[in-house]
């Protein structure tokens, strides 16, 4: 019988490998935006999230305000609140407050998905194991990407800049293909985003993401509220 920690560790290997390659793209992108390798790795170690970090680097590169940074992270990472809430219903009774505070750091889309798929209640040890490989993969990949971004020929680091966005497309397209309401939200979001970028040019890129995403989600929610079993 494997210990819960070891089981978590093994369940997290695939996530860690995936993160290793995706965070490589983040590393390249952040260094290209003018951040130091140390700052880039520091962001990955303390944030452990792709979309929020990419948006954060955009805010830093544009010299945005701290309020803009706070709101950007809040909106982009708000889904973790819902995931954390959902997971909190599934914890075993040894999961006290300090353990919850520690484990919450590691809530990501993929870790959430794997944790949700467990049949038994979640123990803190299992969650520590599950989070370990993704954190290592994410930080190591960032370091490699940041270092490579500084030495690779520019035509290579240029095309690597699209990696992270490619991953976002891979996350959005399949559900949008299956669910027309999601597709509606996606099209609205594209519309708002383009409108802000090319017409309301005084709005900064961080706020552009917030405004576009919230407007698209609220409008879609008003037109197509989800059924109980969808959430």
């Amino acid at each position, binding site marked *: 019988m494997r210990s819960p920690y070891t089981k978590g560790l093994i369940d997290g290997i695939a996530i860690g490998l995936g993160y290793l390659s995706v965070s490589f793209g983040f590393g390249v992108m952040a260094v290209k935006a003018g951040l130091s390798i140390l700052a880039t790795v520091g962001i990955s170690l303390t944030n452990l999230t792709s979309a929020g970090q990419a948006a954060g680097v955009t805010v*830093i590169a544009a010299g945005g305000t*701290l309020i803009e940074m706070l709101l950007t992270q809040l909106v982009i990472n708000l889904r973790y609140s819902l995931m954390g809430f959902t997971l909190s219903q599934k914890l075993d009774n040894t999961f006290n407050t300090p353990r919850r505070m520690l484990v919450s750091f590691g809530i990501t889309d993929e870790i959430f998905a794997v944790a949700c798929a467990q049949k038994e209640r979640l123990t803190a040890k299992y969650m520590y194991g599950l989070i370990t490989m993704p954190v290592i993969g994410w930080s190591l990949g960032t370091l490699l990407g940041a270092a490579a971004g500084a030495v690779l020929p520019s035509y290579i680091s*240029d095309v690597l800049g699209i990696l992270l966005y490619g991953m*976002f497309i891979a996350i959005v397209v399949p559900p949008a293909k299956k669910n027309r309401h999601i597709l509606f939200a996606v099209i609205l979001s594209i519309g708002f985003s383009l409108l802000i970028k090319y017409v309301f040019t005084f709005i900064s890129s961080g706020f552009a993401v917030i405004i576009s995403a919230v407007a698209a989600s609220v409008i879609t929610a008003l037109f197509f509220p989800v059924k109980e079993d969808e959430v």
Partner: protein
Amino acid sequence: MSIFLYIAVMAITTYLVRMIPFTVFRKQIKSRFIKSVLFYLPYAVLTAMTIPAIFYSTGNMMTAVAGTVVAIIMAYFNLPLIVVAVSASAAALIAHFILLYIG
């Protein structure tokens, strides 16, 4: 502004967003409207982050469009995240060399 301040705000905000509901809340969200907004939000966020930023991600709009089109096609056929992401980069690289050759 100090990079340290930016990273601190980023890290603390992201942590609190994760930590508070996981640690504090024990009740179910009831509002169907809020649930619906939260359901659509991740897709809308990723979309708004991608379009139009992806077109400027390679420093050349032609290579970026090539990468975007390939990524959308691969994603449409449900290929794994990393395959889609690497193919987008590969397509942009090939487009770069084609442009060099014909330009």
